[in-house]
């Protein structure tokens, strides 16, 4: 028994997803992921069940000795419902991969959900540190601290020349992926996003749609991250991305100003239509909701919409997702029922902030 009850966490967005933090008009959250593997074991995808169990046992033993997880329970993926797994995925505590593969896989996270450890993901250990808003330093400190706390208690696969060894060679070296979740409607509407994509790639960074599959981009939310993990020290990887994000923020601000300058009435109309729909719609799917939220966020950033805090909109991005809707209602729902519940969830959040 893991004793996990998703109802304990579903009512709050998690400290790092509460929508606060520096530059939260553009940067919703910051994340640092560190991949580690145990010495003397095959990589997860190449293991039989007995080996997965052995890895799990050693990893848990080490995790339970850390200060970070002194008050945390281990959640075995195989022991919780599909809906609970999905809820954890929507909060980024586990990856989508864990929805399908659950045997000998699990997660630990701190009560504030800002530090977490997945066991037997693509790599044996996937450490994550999160922070609200633009705070890569905070996210890095959390992940790196946990790595330091685990290190004495588990023998990690390490190569003098290649660094930390990972299942996929793209993570080799530091095993580190640093990323921010950014909202870039200005760059998308002004069609500048492709130029950005191109220049980021040249500078060894990558950008991709945050929601949706493949190359589909929903709500103009993007994930910006480093693409090289080998050959650069961790603090420099963090510094490089931070500088990149500062530039992207400036670039996005300028695009927004330009857009409002060139097409004020059109944009105002777009913002207020979106606001009206969110305030009064009775059914809305995820894709439409994200796109409407995107337009209202743009309006808040421009000072048009004054009665909705940006934080409320950032939280909605989490709450409108399927597992959150269902867990908060305490019942499973089909797609149509979810669309209705989603519309209601948004109406409530907006009318609350409207009164307050």
């Amino acid at each position, binding site marked *: 028994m893991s004793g996990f009850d998703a109802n304990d966490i579903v009512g709050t967005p998690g400290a790092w997803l509460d929508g606060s933090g520096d530059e939260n008009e553009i940067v919703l959250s910051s994340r640092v992921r560190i991949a580690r593997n145990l010495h003397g074991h*095959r990589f997860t995808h190449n293991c039989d069940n007995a080996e997965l169990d052995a890895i799990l046992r050693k990893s848990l033993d080490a995790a339970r000795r850390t200060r970070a997880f002194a008050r945390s329970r281990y959640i075995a993926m195989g022991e919780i419902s599909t809906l609970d797994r999905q809820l954890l995925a929507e909060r980024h505590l586990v990856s989508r991969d864990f929805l399908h593969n659950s045997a000998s896989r699990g997660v630990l996270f701190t009560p504030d959900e800002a530090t977490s450890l997945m066991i037997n993901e693509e790599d044996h250990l996937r450490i994550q540190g999160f922070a609200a808003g633009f705070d890569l330093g905070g996210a890095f400190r959390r992940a790196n601290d946990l790595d330091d706390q685990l*290190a*004495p*208690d588990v023998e990690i696969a390490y190569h003098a020349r290649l660094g930390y060894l990972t299942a996929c*060679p793209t993570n080799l070296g530091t095993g580190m992926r640093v990323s921010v979740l950014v909202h870039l409607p200005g760059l998308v509407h002004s069609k500048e996003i492709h130029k950005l994509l191109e220049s980021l790639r040249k500078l060894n960074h990558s950008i991709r749609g945050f929601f949706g599959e493949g190359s589909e981009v929903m709500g103009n939310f993007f994930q910006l991250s480093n*693409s090289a993990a080998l050959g650069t020290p961790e603090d420099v990887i963090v510094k490089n991305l931070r500088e990149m994000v500062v530039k992207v923020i400036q670039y996005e601000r300028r695009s927004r100003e330009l857009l409002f300058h060139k097409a004020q009435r059109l944009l105002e109309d777009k913002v207020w239509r979106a606001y009206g729909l969110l305030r009064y719609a009775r059914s809305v799917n995820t894709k439409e909701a994200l796109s409407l939220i995107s337009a209202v966020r743009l309006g808040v950033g421009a000072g048009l919409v004054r009665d909705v805090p940006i934080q409320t909109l950032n939280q909605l991005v989490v709450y409108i997702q399927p597992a959150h809707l269902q867990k908060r209602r305490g019942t499973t729902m089909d797609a149509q029922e979810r669309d209705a519940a989603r519309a209601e969830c948004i109406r409530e959040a907006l009318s609350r902030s409207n009164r307050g």
Partner: protein
Amino acid sequence: MRPAKVHFTEIVNDNMVAMNLCLECAEEKGIDVNKAGSYGLGDLVAGLIDDTVDSEAERISKVRCPSCGYEYSDFKKIGRLGCPDCYDAFEAQLVQVLRHVHGSTQHAGKKAAQVGERAALRERMNVLREELSEAIRTEDYERAAAIRDEIRGLEAQVEDDA
């Protein structure tokens, strides 16, 4: 298991470099997987999987990791290595992949000098505890006392670090 789904070839310093990445990593690298078949971006030349049939390629694909039995061709299929030792086994083949992905072949970050230090101490303590009960069983009390001292020393060390 996520199979390697994205295959593309790139020209690096006049050398053809074949890449096989799992979908997730390809996306993380910012490769638009939907367009991977007809990719025009940068210097990627799409659709050319490294099936340049010659005996050298054949030989390379058969190189085997002594620890896990993985062949280099398995890596090309799946986009992942079989175990940490594969990196040494496929070192020559991986150099170009690493140069392409990271622009480097040399780690420059955190060092794992202290890795597993306490784990090793505990392992040593377990061995000693077994030796201790063996010494007691054979009534070799002098040896038992020595082992007990050693265990206490290690215990103190583990506590200090914690």
